[in-house]
Each structure stands twice: as C-alpha cells, then as structure tokens.
C-alpha cells in the first residue's frame, strides 16, 4: 500500500518536472551546507585530536595566561623559574624551548618559517617522547651548534630545490648546516625547523630566558595530579609570575569547545537555509494541492479515504525532501573533500575529512521528515476537500 502511494507521489513529482527540481534544489542547498560544514568541522576536530595524540599526553605545557595558541615571543620564563620547575618531584625533565619565526634562505629563495630553539643536551630524548624520528641524517647530539634539523615539508616542498643533509642554509642571515630531516609526522613539525637553543638565544637575544616550557612528568604519575602539584609549587615560589599550566587534555578540551561553538553557529546558519528549503516544499505542495483539486475529487469519488489523500501528499513532500537530502549529501561530501584537498594543497595535510555514515543516514531521514512536515498543512488541506467541491473545481 505504502509502495503504491510512494509510486503515485513519485509520478506526480516527475510530472511537475522543472518545478519539482527547483523545490528540490532548495533542500539540496540546505543539506549540502550542513553536511559540508559539519564534516569539515568534524575533520578539524579529528585532526586536532590526532595532533594531540601524536604530541603525547605525558607532558604539560606552561604557557602565557589566557593564551590558547603557541607561546608568543612576548612571553618569557626566567632561568629561576625553569630551575624551580625542574626540581619539583613529579617532574622527570623539562624541554626548554624558544619558539620564534624568521626568514629561511636557501637556493636564493626566502621563506618565512617557525623555528624552535631546542636544548641539544636532551639529545634524542625529547624527540623520542613525541615519537619524532630523523628520516635522513640524525637528531641533535649534546654539544651541537650551528646545525639545523628541518621538517619534512620544509625539506621537500618549501624551495624549488630539495633541501638535503649537509646543505648549508641561512636562518635570519646566520649560516647553519643541515644535519637531519625529520620523517613525516603529519603535524606542524613538518613545517618547522629546529636549531640548538644556544643558537636561538643568540639569534633572538634571549640569553637568560626562554618562552616555552614543556614539562615531562615521571612515569606512573597521574597527569592531572602532577599538574596540581606543579601549579601549587610554582605559585608558592613565583606568585607574581604570570603563567598558565595546561595539560594536553585541557588544551584539547578548550579547542574542542571553541570549535564546537563555531560549528554550532555555522550549522545553525546552514539549518536556516534548510528551513527555507522546507518552506519551498510547503509552497510547492500547496500549489500541487490546488492544481490537483479535481484529481483529489476523483480519487475520493472512487474510494480514497481522507487518510489516503493525506498520505499521498505527505509522501510526495517527504520524497521531495529525501531526494533533496540525498543529492545534498553527495554535493556536501564533494564540497567537504574539496576543502580537504584545498587544505592539503595549501600545506595543511592533517585536515582529515571523513564522512560518517551516521551523518549520512541522519541527513536523509532528517530531510525526509522536514519534507513530510512541510507537507502536513497542504496534506490536511487536500484531505479535507469535499468530493463534490473538488469535482466541481475547474
């Protein structure tokens, strides 16, 4: 029975041709917008989670207050502060970092890159903790100076000529020798260069301070617990110092909540366009009821109950919605993947676009329901027509 009605409704959608398509396009735009925005948003969230997983969760970052991004050049941590942090009992060791950016010159080309001044005395230890390896050449060894390790993208994509181990390269006009190239990590590290901390101190005139501290917590100690201890100790000694202590988990939560809010707003806007699409269906269904008044009369004369008529019109509206939804999903998915490819082309390969089946199924059901709901009023109007009046309608 339902199948008969669906076929019946389908015939009527087909019969209206262009007008049906225009109605469907209204839904397509709404659904495509929602799918692409939600998928890209989800991709960003996945990407960020992956990044955090790769960076490890055994460490704690000390960053400037109220700054959720990377530590800035404005922010400084004194040597006393570092010594104190190192001495706290839950702390295994600390990465003293200077994060800066500057001009990298190679093969007569100049590129602006992010650079990390890294404590070479730690040698491979800090890299091992975040699972970063040398793809070519080597990592730092104690006593290194005037050397550089470049990220995978820096080596292969930044310059016309590929950067190789043993090449000379200028950073902020100082000559460095490339000793290693990181293997690809899929994180921001691919786009960075690493130089010894001592060289960074000289280049950026930071002889007695640094601007980021990554605290590695001893094995077997709960990270949240460790954070409380460290914060307590540091506040006792440096109550006038401005700093925030963040575990990766907290940073992740913060970023996710911001992303969630952005996604919510964007999806809300997309929903408005779906709403406009739904009004389009309603409008088109009212027209359809009017056009087929006589048909409704005939169907009632030959035995259609009010509910039969209502179902036929609801099915028609629902099918219109579902077709729009299905096409919208396809277009939305294509859009989302295009954004992913574009991001990759512009150097952000980590935006992982995945289309979740649950979203696809939800979108089809949602657009069918939206369609059917838009059809409720027209269907009631159709069902309520009196057969005599409907038959007399010209």
């Amino acid at each position, binding site marked *: *029975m339902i199948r*008969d009605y669906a076929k*019946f409704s389908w*015939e*009527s959608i087909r*019969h209206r041709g262009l007008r049906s398509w225009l109605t469907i396009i209204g839904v397509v735009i709404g659904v495509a917008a929602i799918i692409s925005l939600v998928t890209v948003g989800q991709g960003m969230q996945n990407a960020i989670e992956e990044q955090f997983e790769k960076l490890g969760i055994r460490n704690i970052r000390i960053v400037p207050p109220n700054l959720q991004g990377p530590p800035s050049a404005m922010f400084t941590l004194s040597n006393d502060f570092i010594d104190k942090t190192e001495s706290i009992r839950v702390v295994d060791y600390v990465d003293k970092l200077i994060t800066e950016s500057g001009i990298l010159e190679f093969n007569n080309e100049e590129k602006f890159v992010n650079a990390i001044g890294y404590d070479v005395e730690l040698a491979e230890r800090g890299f091992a903790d975040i699972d970063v390896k040398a793809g070519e050449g080597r990592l730092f060894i104690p006593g290194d100076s005037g050397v550089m390790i470049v990220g995978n993208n820096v080596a292969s994509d930044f310059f016309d000529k590929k950067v190789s181990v043993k090449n000379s390269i200028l950073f902020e006009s100082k000559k460095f020798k490339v000793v290693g190239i990181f293997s690809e990590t899929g994180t921001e590290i691919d786009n960075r260069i690493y130089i010894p901390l001592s060289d960074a101190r000289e280049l950026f005139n930071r002889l007695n301070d640094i601007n980021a501290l990554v605290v590695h917590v001893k094995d077997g100690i709960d990270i949240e617990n460790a954070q409380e201890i460290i914060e307590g100790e540091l506040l006792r000694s440096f109550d006038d110092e401005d700093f925030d202590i963040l575990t990766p988990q907290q940073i992740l939560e913060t970023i996710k909540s911001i992303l969630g809010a952005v996604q919510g707003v964007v999806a809300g806007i997309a929903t408005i366009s779906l709403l406009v699409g739904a009004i389009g269906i309603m409008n088109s269904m009212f027209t359809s009821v009017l056009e087929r008044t*006589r*048909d409704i*009369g*005939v*169907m*009632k*004369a*030959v*035995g*259609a*109950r*009010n*509910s*039969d008529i209502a179902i036929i019109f609801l099915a028609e509206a629902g099918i219109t919605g579902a077709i729009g939804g299905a096409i919208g999903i396809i277009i939305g998915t294509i859009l989302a993947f295009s954004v992913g490819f574009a991001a990759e082309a512009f150097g952000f390969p980590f935006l992982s676009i995945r289309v979740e089946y649950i979203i696809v199924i939800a979108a089809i059901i949602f657009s069918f329901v939206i369609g059917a709901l838009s059809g409720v009023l027209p269907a009631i109007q159709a069902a309520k027509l*009196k*057969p*005599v009046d409907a*038959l007399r309608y010209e």
Partner: protein
Amino acid sequence: MAKNSVIRLDNVWKTYKMGEVDVQALRGLSLEVNDGEFVAIEGPSGSGKSTAMNMIGALDYPSKGSVYLGNHDITKLSESQLAVIRGRKIGFVFQQFNLLANLSAMENVALPMMFQGVSPSKRRERARNLLESVGLGDRLNHRPSELSGGQQQRVAIARALSNNPEVILADEPTGNIDSKTGQAIIALLRGMHREGKTIIMITHDHKLAKFADRIELLKDGVIVGGSKK
C-alpha cells in the same frame, strides 16, 4: 420476485448557501432504485440533477432526509467510511471523464482497486481485462491526453467497473463526445445492464433517457413524473 433496493432516497432536501441566499437544490426528493434496474433521471439544467447525482453517489450529505446505500444510512457514516463504501458499491462515469492525467489507462482503471487494498498484480490483471472488454486492449499504457474523447470515456467505464460495484452512476456520459461515439458508450452501458449491473444515468437528453427501463423526471428538485417500459 421482489428485488432488493440498492439505493433509496427518502425525502431528501439539499440547501446551498449562495452568499446571503439559500438555494434549495433538492426539495424532498424520494427515489428507490432496485437491483438490476436501468434508471434514467432526466431533467433540464437547474433541475437539481447534479445535486441528485451527488446524493445518489454518496458524494455529499443531504441537508434533510435520508439516503440509503444498500442498508447503510449514509448520513450516519463518516467521510472516510463513506469513501470506502462508495469505492466498493458505486462506479462513476462522469461527463468530463475525470481521468488522472499523470496515469496511464491501465493505472487509471486500477486506481479504485488500489484504495480497496487489492494487490498490484491482481490490479494489473483486472485492469487489462476490463480495458480489453471495452475495446482498448491496445491502449493500456496510453495517457488520457493520447486518447480520443470516446476512448477516454471507455477508460472511465472500465474504471467504474474495476471494484465490481453494484451500481454504475453515469452523469451525462455522452455529453462531451460526438453522437456516434455516444452510441457506442450507450451500448456499453446497456451491455453492462444485461450482465446484471444496476445503472443510473443522469441526463438532460430525452433521446438518451429512452434507453433506460425507467425514466424519472426531475424538476425543481423533486420527481415530477416518470415512465416505465
């Protein structure tokens, strides 16, 4: 042998509101049609023919009086109950054919069966047989727009028969077709009557009415006389 009454109208009044004025289309119409009869209701325009047809066909409720379809009093039935009974007991043949333009001849004929819940394969088979019986076996998949007036009316007659109703109610069945084709339509109706169907034909045309066994003359909303063969 006393025949069963299939349709009985008992002092039926129907009043329409036309703006401020009440128009009395039927003023105490009484009529009984028995099983197997061929009855013509003849009247000039404005005599209440269409309203009478709506009452007989259970398409509308009377303002006053009773309409019995078999032993159901239609005034006591809901619209949907009425639709089901109408679909089963009455086959309509309209002056304007009233076929659904989107559907093929076969789908039009199968439509009343769909609302009675007949399975698709049975519907198709019966629709094909019915169209063959009205001489349209080669037009099964044509749409109404691809058929002549006479052919469309034959599709409508096949549709009227699809639920094997007791009564065929024909409203000016030849009104929109030429006289020669009209003859063929009348012949079909007479054939159905011979096979035992009750036929009620509403017309303004006395020549057409004469094909019936019984003529009831309608004027100003009441039966004013009649004749019987």
